[in-house]
């Protein structure tokens, strides 16, 4: 008989070890999956994790992609993790990401074709504000009416997607685009282009913002009173009230912050890698960031690593589709497995296995 026994206090070792174990288990089970699909499992795993960085032919293209893909994931996940730490579940980062992109792009396009250096900072600000405002909807509904922020923020994603469809083909459509949907291409407008800072590395301003966010969140959570109150609210809401934390203000802060960061991520994406506001510019970063946040143990440094890892599986997944002919669904399954094993391994942080001889009657 195997029994789970609660540990007297959470194991720090297991807490640090679970992401590693989860990755290893995902590789093993994922390898078996690929094997069942007819691919060589070792080759598949190598294609997923190794080739994007070191393949003689593809690495030059895929290595910069790593930062391009990781930056929005990390930026969004940092915001989400602070809310999750406080027990405030913003599931709608995808919507805030889209609204940030729309608002930021619109603010910039209003000044087209100005070449002022202030255009790009203005767009970042407007993007953050757009995401913030979209996050404030579930926040205000929760504080004023007691609605559930999980449902409201999630449903607002679909509202945002509808708005995106509308503006991409209407309000923001490129007047010189010969009727094609989509806004002007920011890559062709230097003042608003989120270009690479160091050519060939994928380092755009979103990468810088993500790094700043990681440091900011780390300091906030480990040293600052506000971060302490965030953690306290998540762990013991009544104790937080005793400490003088205003729960409504905490909700507004967390949803506002995660919305603003997601909005910024959207703006960086739309002015950089995506280039223009199109119906489908978002690649589900807002949802994947939830996995990244948990994979990183809601810890800023962990999220940095988890974001890079997740970006790697994205790029490796594309390579595997191309080179090994693996179906896209298998890659998604592989990514899903990662979260699955993480949550499963997580049990061992608070519990340990006990083997008992006698079977329960």
């Amino acid at each position: 008989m195997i029994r789970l026994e609660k540990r007297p206090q959470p194991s720090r070792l297991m807490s640090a070890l679970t992401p590693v174990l989860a990755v290893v288990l995902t590789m093993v089970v994922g390898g078996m999956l690929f094997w069942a699909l007819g691919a060589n499992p070792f080759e598949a795993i190598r294609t997923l994790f190794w080739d994007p960085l070191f393949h003689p032919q593809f690495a030059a293209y895929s290595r910069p992609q790593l930062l391009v893909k990781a930056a929005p994931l990390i930026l969004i996940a940092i915001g989400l993790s602070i809310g999750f730490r406080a027990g405030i579940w913003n599931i709608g980062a995808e919507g805030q990401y889209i609204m940030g992109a729309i608002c930021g792009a619109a603010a910039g396009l209003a000044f087209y074709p100005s070449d002022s250096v202030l255009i790009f900072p203005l767009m970042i600000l407007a993007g953050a504000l757009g995401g913030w405002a979209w996050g404030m909807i579930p926040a205000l509904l929760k504080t004023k009416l007691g609605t559930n922020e999980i449902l409201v923020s999630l449903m607002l994603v679909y509202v945002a997607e509808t708005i995106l469809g509308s503006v991409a083909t209407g309000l923001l459509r490129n007047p010189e685009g010969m009727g094609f949907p989509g806004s002007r291409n920011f890559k062709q407008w230097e003042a608003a282009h989120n270009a690479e800072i160091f050519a060939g590395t994928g380092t755009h301003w979103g990468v810088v913002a993500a790094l700043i966010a990681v440091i900011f969140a780390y300091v906030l959570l480990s040293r600052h009173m506000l971060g302490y109150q965030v953690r306290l609210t998540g762990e013991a809401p009544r104790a937080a009230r005793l400490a003088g934390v205003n729960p409504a203000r905490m909700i507004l802060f967390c949803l506002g912050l995660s919305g603003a960061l997601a909005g910024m991520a959207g703006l960086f994406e739309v002015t950089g890698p995506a280039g223009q506001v199109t119906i489908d510019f978002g690649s589900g970063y807002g949802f994947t960031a939830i996995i990244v946040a948990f994979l990183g143990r809601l810890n800023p440094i962990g999220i940095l690593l988890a974001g890079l890892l997740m970006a790697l599986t994205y790029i490796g997944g594309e390579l595997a589709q191309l080179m090994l002919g693996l179906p896209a669904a298998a890659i998604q399954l592989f990514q899903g497995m990662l979260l699955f094993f993480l949550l499963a391994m997580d049990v061992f942080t608070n519990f340990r296995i006990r083997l008992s001889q006698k079977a329960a009657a």
Partner: protein
Amino acid sequence: MDDTLLRIDGLTKAYPGVIANDSVSFAIGKGEIHALLGENGAGKSTLVKMIYGLVKPDSGVMTLNGAPYHPAKPSEARASGVAMVFQHFSLFNALNVAENVALGMETPPPMRDLARRIRTVSETYGLPLDPSRTVGTLSAGERQRVEIIRCLLQDPRLLIMDEPTSVLTPQEVDILFETLRKLQAEGTSILYISHKLEEIRALCDHATILRLGKNVGTCVPRDTTAREMAELMVGSSFATPQARATEKGAVLLEIRDLSLPAPGAFGTPLRGISLSVRAGEVLGLGGVAGNGQDELLDALSGERLAPAGTVHLKGSDVSRKGPAHRRAEGLLSGPEERLGHAAAPDMSLTENAVLTAAHRKRLVANGFINWTRARTFAEEVIARFDVRTPGSGTAARALSGGNLQKFVVGREIAQAPDVLVLNQPTWGVDAAAAAFIRQAILDVAARGGAVIVISQDLDELMQVSDRFGALNEGRLSPLRPVAGLDIEQIGLMMGGAHDMEVADVNAWP
């Protein structure tokens, strides 16, 4: 014919790092009321959990009625005739009495039959209870009756009662004792867990005393003094709180006609509470649980804001100020619930020190926490209040109840409060730690602080208080000096009967 009902032989249970029960043996006779006595952490709970099938012993045997007895789960224990009334009730507020009883049964009879049986049992044993009442509207004493009746419906041969009187008024205790004696007369054995020595002397035939997981002695309580039993329990004599000079200073905290609606469906509204506490004074507030104690603490700590003009701290109105402001001004509070309210379970003691001491102990500068100062403060509390823990990095939930209580009470006292409000400061704490905490409370008053102690332990209130009042349905009885109060008067104050006419004239226009 052997008239032993349950024999326990060499029962041992070890948890990682601690031996909860070390080869404990004793026997309970048929129709005997047997007391199980011990400090918190002595292993009483583990022992009864093994008898009730919640925990499996590592070694040792139990015999029930001559047959080997090793229940793997509570339902097997119940089938063998062992029933248990827990200290904390497991009842659903929104359901009525009969529905709650039915939920605990494997095959509940039709509701009408069940209601009839509940009525019969409640009349037979003198436990008045209406099966159709919603549990949320019952007093703590009545809730306990639901639990007892739930057990009695199974015709138990052994009834285990875990600290049953901690939530009762003296009058309710008398009713309970009558019921237990009636059960005893019918041949039911009772295992009675308590640390209230006078009760055990009044009720029990034999007592087994546990200390650090070991059986340290069996005695006949009627022939043993409370002091002797207490010393067996603790293993050494402990200091009784010292009374201090009675000089009272200025009024530090004043509440004027404080009324607050109930915080939820089953909370208690506060109705027109007025009181004042002076420097150097301890005000004891008694009352049966659920009569507004938690609500009063929340209104004083600032977790719930009060109507303007109702709460005055050192002459200024703080009714509309939150906990941080009140704390900065010298009003500190310690809520009843240790885990989750007074402390965050998964945070370390250092982090929990920041919880209420951030401002007063200057653990925060410019919004940044100084963890070195926080650790120093936590270690100071640990040392001064004799908190047994590996260190300040230990998670709060890893501490035993008594040790965590010493920490959270100590955390407030170490901040030199002007006004200190504590709810159940020694709840679930062993005798030595309780004496220590009471002494610390008296020291706060001696230093010129004003203290309000809310407690359900009347002995404790009589020991530490200068004046006494009781909460009943959110109303506060008139405050009386403790000197000269007897247990009858206190019971009436708690029941709300005393000065009823006067109170009624005031309450109902």
